[in-house]
């Protein structure tokens, strides 16, 4: 029997009695890039946070590589939303990346040369090695996002959760992130990405989760990423989008 990197069963999350996620169940196959899609307030970030144990769940069960999350923590990497931290914190890029090793170090132990080298390697992978010593407030938004990605790489995990890594980044950073996702996939790692740009979904992801309060559809991109499912996920809004794109292409001709 193969164990899935991630199994979610009947996951239900509520903020002050208002249900945000309603009985969501799915299994994620290994070695895939998975896009989590849905309108604002659909519970995408909530799903990530609930799976990571950052917020309390009302009901449901999350298994990571067949075990409870707290047993498998070292196999999980996390990229929070960039806006979730104060970038004027007194620290530099390399130091932030080294934070990815703190979970492996355990209590009291300080990061040393080994952690430093690994962190530098991860910064190089995202094309940021020259900026290792830069105070983090002096990095551009895209560079800050890459620092967060490098920190997740330093976690040397098998399953990654990324909360909107493509939000507000320039083309260079977007390319760097895509290349990184491909590399992780080639290494057999599984990556879940909260994503907003519908135009790039088919290009970036093998697998999609469509979310709107509950799970609308889930599966390989070719099968699931259909106008019908998108209509169900986004409601009327997607129709406007399609009309717009249709008229735009008509205008070009």
């Amino acid at each position, binding site marked *: 029997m193969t164990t899935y990197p991630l199994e979610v069963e009947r996951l239900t999350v509520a903020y002050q009695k208002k249900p945000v996620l309603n009985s969501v169940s799915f299994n994620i196959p290994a070695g895939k890039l998975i896009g989590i899609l849905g309108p604002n307030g659909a519970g995408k970030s909530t799903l990530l946070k609930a799976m990571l144990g950052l917020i309390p769940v009302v009901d449901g069960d999350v298994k990571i590589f067949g075990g409870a999350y*707290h047993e498998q923590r070292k196999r999980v990497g996390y990229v929070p939303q960039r806006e979730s931290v104060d970038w004027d914190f*007194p620290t530099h890029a390399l130091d932030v990346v080294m934070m990815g090793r703190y979970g492996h170090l355990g209590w009291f132990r300080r990061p040393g040369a080994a952690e430093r080298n690994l962190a530098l390697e991860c910064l190089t992978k995202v094309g940021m090695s020259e900026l290792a010593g830069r105070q983090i407030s002096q990095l551009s938004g895209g560079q800050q996002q890459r620092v967060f990605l490098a920190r997740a790489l330093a976690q040397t995990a098998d399953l990654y959760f990324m909360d909107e890594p493509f939000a507000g980044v320039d083309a260079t950073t977007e390319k760097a992130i895509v290349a990184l996702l491909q590399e992780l996939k080639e290494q057999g790692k599984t990556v879940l990405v909260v994503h907003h740009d519908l135009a790039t979904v088919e290009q970036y992801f093998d697998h999609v989760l469509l979310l709107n309060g509950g799970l609308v559809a889930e599966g390989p991109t070719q099968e699931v990423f259909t106008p019908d499912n998108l209509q169900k996920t986004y409601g009327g809004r997607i129709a406007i989008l399609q009309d717009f794109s249709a008229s735009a292409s008509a205008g070009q001709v």
Partner: protein
Amino acid sequence: MLSSFTSWFADPNLQWILMGSLLLGLGSGVIGSFAYLRKQSLLGDALAHAALPGICIAFMLSGVKSMGLFILGAIISGALATFGIHAITRFSRIKQDAALGIVLSVFFGIGVVLMTKIQHSGNGNQSGLDKYMFGQAASMMLSDVYLVGAVSLVLILICALLFKEFKLVSFDPGFARGMGMRTAFLEQLLLLMTVIAVVIGIQAVGVVLVAALLITPAVAARYWTDRLGVMVVFAGVFGGLSGAVGTMISGTLSNLPTGPVTVLAATLLFAVSALFAPNRGLIAKLMRRSRQRVEVRQWAGTPESGLGAAASRRYAGERSADS
């Protein structure tokens, strides 16, 4: 003045008190760095004010002036205040800053009422509780000084041991929790350490101003560096200096309360930092801006900027249109 200064230094008791306030400032500065970075500067102030009723009740129940009991009372009322702030933000639409304001003033009001009652009672005068308002370092008993010094050292030691954990919890608590760090425990510990730093500082600096010893050195230290480790050390040194200077000046000038002098010393350090610190200081910023202005002007005047050529072309065009 000078003779009182030298005689003051000859007194071993006062030497200890000076040492105590130095350590107190050091510990407060170190803990304050984390409170400041976690945007909980005001919480320290609320906790200090909330400590007053705890201290008064501890005195009313026991009838003795004991540092240990006062600390216990202050921690209990501090915990109640934290709980109150938490409950208000959780169960109403009131935001944290307003909740802090409400709880701080209510607890302080109760504290002042209780203190007035104690002073009008029989043993009120020898209680020396009035010193707790603005602080009087010189009034500390030697045993208290030892306690203050020892507790400060323990606080600094914990910060050194858990530096990595405190750093991550201050910078990115969500990520810390995701990787399995006991963030709830660490946050509670930081809060408890803030309460303790505030409480042991109350006798020397006073309820009203003790929060300044927590925050001002940290804010001043932030100007000098972009490294957390360096910032914490600077904040400790600034806090220690302020504490020592405050104690010395208030001890030599007749009965000036220690708190205000300490705060003024800390604020002076802050002003110097805000003005003269490299990079983040005001003067460095102004110099950088004027240098950039000159550079941009020079660049705009050179041929490769394209601005000069375009301007002369436009001028030529206007002339030909005229004729």
